[in-house]
């Protein structure tokens, strides 16, 4: 069922869910939302499954014309107007046929998520609806949205009979300076003690070469112990690779699955969504996290998602 006609597509808008798993060995990246926390919040606010497919909007959102009565929710700090009137994010919004939803710029952070009641309907490819644009896999024909596209939803979705609102204390704040935890390794031996200290005690800024595949960072060069040619091995989102110039590259959701740069550390899973909201010139500090602490953080994070869902305000 066609829910929206895309009048303007925004800067870079794709369909994403929680990612595509099980195909790394065939070279297929995980993809999925850069900020999976916000995607889950958007879904909660229309009573969807947490992992239903949403639109991921980057820096500037699209303009959409509703072709049906539909319920939506927006997660993220982005300007939003319905028929020219300012509207709030972080809550259920009831749209009627003909309504114009126009997004402006993202104010803080880098990405915002639009959930529709029941989820966005694109074919499941290799177990996921996420878009991997470089590989033309999944989402809307493997590409970003363009003007004239139709965003489809599922037929026979029961609307919810109330509005859900995210209490203020749970609204994430996106800072231009973020700190993320890392588990050291797996190629720590490629770096000197001094190189490791450089990495852990200096902020690194995102350059303009930052997209869903990864972020090139600017900051003090990380010293190698010796120039060993590393034999290519596997990469996951959050891997901090250091090429010969000593400036780290953090891989993100659409990262290729193998690579030959030594990896000094890997960002802890519970912090990856924070990194997904970083934009060029934002500063990132990495701090060492023990594996057991990282695991506890991840379990706490998953628990928190459940707690938030139970604390949404309902307005009838």
């Amino acid at each position: 069922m066609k829910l929206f006609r895309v009048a303007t597509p925004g800067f870079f808008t794709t369909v994403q869910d929680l990612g595509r798993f099980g195909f790394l060995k065939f070279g297929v990246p995980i993809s999925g939302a850069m900020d999976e926390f916000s995607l889950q919040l958007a879904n909660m606010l229309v009573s969807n499954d947490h992992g239903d497919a949403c639109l991921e909007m980057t820096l500037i959102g699209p303009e959409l014309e509703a072709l049906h009565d539909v319920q939506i929710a927006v997660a993220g700090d982005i300007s939003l107007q319905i028929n020219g009137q300012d509207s709030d994010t972080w809550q259920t919004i009831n749209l009627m046929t003909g309504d114009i939803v126009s997004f402006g710029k993202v104010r803080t952070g880098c990405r915002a998520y639009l959930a529709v009641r029941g989820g966005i309907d694109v074919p499941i490819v290799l177990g996921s609806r996420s878009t991997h644009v470089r590989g033309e896999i999944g989402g809307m024909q493997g590409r970003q949205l363009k003007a004239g596209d139709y965003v489809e939803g599922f037929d026979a979705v029961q609307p919810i009979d109330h509005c859900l609102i995210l209490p203020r204390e749970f609204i994430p704040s996106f800072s231009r300076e973020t700190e993320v935890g890392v588990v050291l390794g797996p190629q720590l031996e490629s770096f000197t003690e001094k190189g490791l200290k450089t990495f852990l005690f200096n902020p690194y800024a995102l350059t303009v070469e930052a997209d869903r595949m990864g972020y090139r960072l600017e900051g003090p060069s990380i010293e190698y112990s010796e120039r060993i040619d590393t034999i290519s091995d596997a990469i996951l989102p959050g891997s901090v690779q250091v090429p010969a110039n000593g400036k780290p590259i953090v891989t993100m959701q659409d990262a290729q699955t193998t690579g030959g740069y030594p990896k000094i550390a890997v960002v802890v899973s519970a912090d990856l969504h924070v990194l997904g909201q970083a934009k060029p010139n934002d500063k990132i500090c990495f701090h060492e996290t023990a594996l057991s602490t990282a695991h506890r953080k991840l379990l706490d994070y998953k628990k928190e998602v459940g707690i938030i869902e139970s604390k949404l305000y309902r307005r009838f």
Partner: protein
Amino acid sequence: MPFGDRALKVELGNIISPEVNARVHALHEAITHAQFSGVCECVPTYCSLLMTYDPAKASYEELVTKVNHLEETSKAHVPKRKMHKAVLPVVYGGDFGPDLAQVSRFHNLKEGDVVRMHSQQEYLVYMIGFIAGFPYLGKLPEEIATPRLETPRLRVPEGSVGIAENQTGIYPRQAPGGWQIIGRAPIKLFDSLWQPPALLQPGDFVRFRPISAEEFWQIRASASERRYDPFVAE
């Protein structure tokens, strides 16, 4: 060793060799067979295996013990794996392989010699990476091992067969790339609608069969309708 908080990396050596790589694939197979709870997926590469897991369902230490045990026992009976041997048709040189001339000059060989050496060798699929379905094949005969292009191309066409140092590989789709392109195969290597999505699997064996430009277009026309079957019956 830990690879972040949701994967562990098992190192089985530090050289690119068919022997080390065979152990990676044997361990991969053993882990797949063992079906440990909490293990999500494995990524075999040249000399290591990455295994992702859900920390809510399995502990790192417990998995390390299990994998070490498997490694010990799988060493005893390597590798009972069924050999998959593929033969892939390739047009060498000309517009299909714009770097064949350069590769030949680099080694002071005739183009025909390079083609003969490239197509007589049987290669192991060490791993799949870079882009979906891209097989890293080795080992290339030393006589034709060639460094990458100084300036990578912005667009290498789908099916291009390239050389980089002592490896060879095939581009499953158009992509930027720095490999020396010596030929082109008329077949699809990856389709997200296939199950599994890649024609070749890590651990398979591949040979190349030189074909003419006419045959290239013939195979391409027929292979566009169905999946090309390059596997040789044992």
